[in-house]
């Protein structure tokens, strides 16, 4: 089942937790189908002058990445030296293979374009004898219009990155990622909501840690602004935040939600780990 897991690249320097990214569009599609939307952050080549519709890489929240690893749906890949090593290890045969690959892609493009061209000429009713002449011109034109693609995923390290999918490596990377988060409790809040079917996205713009959607954000309005996790027993509810949160929620039609995380050592059921409360302005006073 290794192949079906999504590779999550952790960008990190020395001793850093890492920024989780996904580069492969099929993987992104798969994540979406299991309730992980993430945020696209790269320039969309077909519309490079705007920020509303972006392309790969897909950036995940640390909590998302950790949940995917825990659920065996994804695995973490890291190594700032990996590209250097892979590039250095390439031998002449390797490069030849890459060039052959490019040539094959060109050949396919030529084939496709010629066919289209012929099709067009036929439709226009150009006679066969005139065609031969046009053909040489066209060939020159065609050669310069062949497309060299910059791929989303790496071909250099595609073999190497699979080797990261081993329990002990995953445990280490996950631990590293987890300790770099501002709040440890947020993971439990994320997990509980995710497993109840909510889609979550980063929520700082609405004054929260997460925004929760009842289904795919492409189709549904968000329902809640989820606050950073609280300690169930120790942290007092900040009433000033309740007041502004509740008012804000009324305006944007989102409930203001707090989750209290119970201690690690408690024997309670995992699903009882977080206790949620939803706050809403009562409409008077």
């Amino acid at each position, binding site marked *: 089942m290794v192949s079906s897991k999504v590779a999550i*690249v952790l*960008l*990190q*320097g020395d001793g850093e*937790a890492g920024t989780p990214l996904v*580069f492969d*569009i099929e993987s992104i599609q798969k994540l*979406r189908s299991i309730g992980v939307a993430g*945020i696209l*952050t*790269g*320039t969309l*080549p*077909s*519309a*490079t*002058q*705007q920020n*509303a*519709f972006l*392309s*790969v*890489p897909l*950036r*995940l*929240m640390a909590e998302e990445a950790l949940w995917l690893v825990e659920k065996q749906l994804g695995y973490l890949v890291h*190594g700032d030296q990996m*590209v250097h090593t892979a*590039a250095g290890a*390439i031998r002449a045969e390797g*490069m030849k293979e*890459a060039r052959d690959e*490019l040539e094959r892609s060109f050949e396919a493009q030529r084939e496709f374009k010629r066919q289209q061209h012929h099709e067009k000429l036929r439709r226009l009713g150009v006679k066969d004898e005139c065609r031969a002449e046009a053909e040489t011109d066209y060939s020159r034109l065609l050669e*310069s*219009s062949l*497309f*060299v*693609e*910059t*791929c*989303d*995923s*790496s*071909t250099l*390290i595609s073999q190497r990155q699979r080797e990261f999918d081993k329990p002990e490596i995953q445990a280490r990377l996950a631990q590293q990622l987890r300790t*770099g*988060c*501002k709040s440890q409790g947020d993971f439990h809040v994320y997990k509980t909501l995710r497993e109840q079917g909510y889609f979550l*996205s980063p929520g*700082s*713009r609405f004054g929260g840690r997460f925004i929760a959607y*009842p*289904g*795919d*954000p*492409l*189709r*549904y*309005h968000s329902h809640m602004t989820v606050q950073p996790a609280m300690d169930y027993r120790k942290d007092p509810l900040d009433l000033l935040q309740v007041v502004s949160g509740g008012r804000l929620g009324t305006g*944007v039609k989102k409930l203001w939600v707090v989750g209290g995380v119970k201690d690690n050592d408690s024997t309670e059921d995992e699903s009882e780990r977080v206790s949620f409360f939803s706050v809403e302005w009562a409409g008077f006073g």
Partner: protein
Amino acid sequence: MNELDEGSFIPSSLLDSDDDADELPQDWSHIAKLSRGQVVVPKRGEKDYEPDGTNAQEMLLHKAKTAMFDSLSDASRGSVVKNLIKAYYVPDLHKACVPHPKGSFMHTMGKVDRNGSCWLSFFEFVYLAERGTITPYYKRKERDDHNLDPLLGIQDLYMLFKSQKESDEFAVYAHLKRLGFIVMQSSQNSAGASSVEQEKDSAVQKLRLRFCQTFESLSGSVSNPFNLPFYHPLQCHLTRYCTSAQIYESLNKLIPYIAAPKTQEELQKDMCTKNDSAGKWEFSFDVWKPQSNFKKKTPGLPDFQVVVFNKNSQKENFPTYHEMRGLLKMLRCKMDFLSGQANEQPNPTKTEEAKGGAKKKSKANKKYPPHIEQQRRIKRGYRSFVLATMDDGLVSFIKITETDFGSENVWFKPNNAPVRKEKGKPKGSKFNGEVIESR
């Protein structure tokens, strides 16, 4: 196509991901039209409250997803052989070299060396590769032969970021670049300033510093003279206040405040006072508004400077006031509030300000009554910088502006109040601007 013109048909609601209209963009069916250059008015409010189990809704969601993923996979990055611009990443320099540079990106990006090669910073390299403007390769140091330099994918490029901070900064860089802003890395920019100039500067700097220090110590003793009991019960028997202003003035001596520098002189004084409060903060980018006559070599002062901050990283926090002040002292950019002054007292060393303010001058120099002028001053504030906040992929920008309520007194003065004129009936001098009670 020119980088600037391209953006003009895109509605402003699409420009920024953190649009007011809530949430994330949803309708990818527009993007196909967008890339064909048609004017697109994004539709809003087509979302549902929650899944209701109907097929119709399923269908709509399916359509939305298809539109999204089709747009993603149809938009492949790269260029045709004719326009191919190869850029080679040089690992030791963490930069990329374009041996045969061409194209409009060179107006605002890269540095051309003696051999005619263009050197791209790592951000420029990744950004241009993402757009499909250049084709990225990895330069293997032991070989001159490019035939053995492998082609890189987007994933490879990202994996070459040296730290989380660098990748966060790149996200902000790309966000601004996509909108047509001209963005330079701040450190890169100042390092580029000629060393001679810097040396000359430092001599002057030292002189100024000494002056400022004496000034500081003097003003320090003056600004806090308050050691008398403030509102002593006897005060009311000894002093008579004849106007509300006098009462206010006796009250507002109590709390010391930090006054913002408001003129060239005050700014220079502030800049050369000791600055150790910025901590680890420094500006990431110098940013210029989109402009067609930009000169890389003599860019002038940037329109604003940006710091980047990751709100979810354990290592980072929203800047404290001390850190903000430290950043303000380091600020080297155009300052709107000076534009009016530059006109009155031309200063040859600061022509940039005058130039930058020229466009706005007509607006800024328009005379308002003093109390309106005052409100505008308070509201606009003084020095400012932009704080780009990274929230797991969503970037939002906050403008932090030094404000100064302490230097202004806004109590109501009946004599300055706008006098409402009654038609055809000139007011008597005794009237004093107040409306007479009506029965």
